[in-house]
């Protein structure tokens, strides 16, 4: 086992899959010599050449649409959208088209493609380099949507996404890229999409999250531990399909729930998770299902005090946990 960063794990997953399967190729802006703006593809063009590591024109709709076309032909494209904030021109191809190919052709065609994109804030990125658009995609049947939080999960899940027969949108929180390090096995492994993971076992409150926020939840859980409250942190890892069983099992155990995401509140993943719990575990609840989320403003502002105000952090999460604990 070696300790690696999230970005290293992502790079290794692509490297290994490209070695394993000649149908896998990468396309995106600056993925070649530059190695991607976050260096996720560093060294790949040197290893696999320009034909499998393609610097595309600056046009996201075509990145997704051409990947879709190649996928229908049997290739396994990994399309990189440089920042999640720039995915909007590609939404027509991803949500409008890719998600509907299998259903609309009665299974004659399918789309084994991955759309990777760095997302999330806390990086002084302002309105257009901080967005968390996962809920828009998670709403769409036909897509799978993955949001890993650790190097181990990122590598295992990205490999699964590349091998998946359906389109997967793979959101990598850019703040975790270098901040979060963790052990990654030397031997080959793949993690199943759609399976959540208990990152910290506890008995008093279930704290449900994904991405960067998982780490903030873990910090908040430590604060609460000192106050005698034992928090379980459930990392969804995949936001579509949601791991209902893992959610319900934890809630049945603790009877109290806090859901945390950086995306703004209304219509976010928290709403769906809360609805599942309300529908299927209502009788187990001892407190209202509560959310700590980004605020309902159009995007995360740039200036440090404004960004800090937007971002959920361990203190805000701890305050939420205390509210739920003391109800």
């Amino acid at each position, binding site marked *: 086992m070696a300790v690696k960063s999230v970005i290293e794990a992502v790079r290794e997953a692509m490297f290994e899959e490209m070695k394993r399967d000649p149908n896998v190729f990468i396309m995106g*802006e*600056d993925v*070649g*010599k*530059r*190695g991607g*703006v976050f260096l996720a593809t560093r060294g790949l063009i040197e290893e696999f050449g320009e034909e499998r590591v393609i*610097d*595309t*024109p*600056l*046009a*996201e*709709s*075509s990145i997704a649409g051409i990947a879709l076309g190649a996928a229908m032909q049997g290739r396994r494209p990994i399309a990189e959208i440089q920042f999640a*904030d*720039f995915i*909007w*021109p590609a939404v027509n191809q991803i949500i409008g088209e890719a998600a509907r190919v299998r259903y609309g052709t009665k299974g004659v065609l399918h789309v084994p493609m991955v759309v990777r994109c760095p997302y999330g804030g806390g990086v*002084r*990125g*302002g*309105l*257009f*380099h901080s967005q968390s658009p996962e809920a828009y995609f998670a709403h769409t049947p036909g897509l799978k949507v993955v949001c890993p939080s650790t190097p181990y999960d990122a590598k295992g899940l990205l490999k699964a996404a590349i091998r998946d027969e359906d389109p997967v949108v793979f959101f990598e929180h850019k703040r975790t890229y270098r901040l979060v390090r963790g052990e990654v096995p030397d031997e080959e492994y793949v993690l199943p999409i759609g399976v959540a993971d208990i990152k910290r076992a506890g008995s008093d409150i279930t704290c449900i999250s994904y991405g960067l926020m998982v780490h903030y939840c873990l910090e908040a859980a430590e604060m609460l531990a000192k106050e005698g409250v034992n928090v379980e942190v459930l990392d969804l890892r995949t936001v579509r399909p949601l791991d209902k069983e893992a959610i319900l099992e934890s809630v049945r155990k603790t009877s109290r729930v806090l859901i945390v995401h950086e995306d703004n509140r209304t219509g976010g993943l928290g709403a769906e998770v809360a609805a599942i719990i309300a529908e299927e575990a209502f009788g187990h609840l001892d407190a209202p299902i509560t959310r700590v989320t980004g*605020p*309902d*403003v*159009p995007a995360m*502002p*740039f*200036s*440090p*005090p*404004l960004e800090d*105000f937007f971002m959920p952090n361990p203190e805000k999460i701890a305050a939420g946990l205390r509210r739920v604990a003391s109800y």
Partner: protein
Amino acid sequence: MVRSRNTAATQTRKAAEHAVAEVLTPDVLLGWYSTMVLVRTLDERAWLLNRQGKAAILASSQGHEATQMGAVWAAVRYSPSLAIFPFYRGLATAIATGITPTEALLSILAKAGDPASGGRQFPLHGAVMTPKLKVINISNVVATQIPHAVGYALGCRMSGDPTVTMTTFGDGATSEGDWHEGMNYAGIYKLPVVFICENNGVAISVPQRKQMAIVNVADRAAGYGMPGVVVDGTDVMAVYEVVGEAVRRAVRGEGPTFIEAKVVRLLPHTSDDDDRRYRTPEELEDMKRRDPLKKFKEHLMEQGILTAQLDEQAHKEAKEHVDRATEAAEAAPFPDTGDFYDHVYASE
């Protein structure tokens, strides 16, 4: 290589032919030179503030100054009123529109006094609106401003507003659907828009040959039924002339013009980039020879308009000006969060 049949519409202009030479008196040119020196000094200072951890991100306009400033000066001169939809590399555009170095630094340092967005946005993004000159830069998402500019011009036509609209963008931006769709619309309805492509040959690291199968971006204009003009974008006088002509065309109701200004990007893409991964030292040396400030200085000296003494004075004044601006901007407060939720919708 496929070339459109209308390539004849693409004209190449040299600095030598100046229909507007009469307005370019030695005093005007010296004023331009000092302002270009000021912008360069400010740009270098902003980069330093980034390296000191005080400015989060910057996209430098070094190498683009002649195009950005020449275009604004010409457009202001020849239009009754002007709306500009610039892209993120527009420090020189901003200064040419009258933003002061202090205002620019307030924006770069994300302070409450940022005139464009009060610190909500990346430097110089947002809107600065005056009766005669509007600068609107809603986002740094590439090419989204093209349809905005075209729609603004449509609105002006609908309301009888004689404003000319100008938009600036890079070569990479011309790959986006938004760019093509906006150009097409402007061409069909002959809207009064001046499109300025600041072609520095790269989009972050991607060279133009991987961006399009043509050498001159201006060839694309023919497909949208408008003239495409190529100009040396490191020559401020040449830019002034072609933009002046395009603006007068728009005013006369003859429709849009596409101008491709060939420029150099002297620094990495942004302060977050390291261009040594994709540009050789030789390429960078080569580009420095096309530095618009250096070229303008040499030209003015050859003409006997600029002397070593005047040059020294311009640099000294620029440094003092930028020093004062830095001090003021650093001392200024950050925005507070009291109005964090304001302006999501119209207030009741």
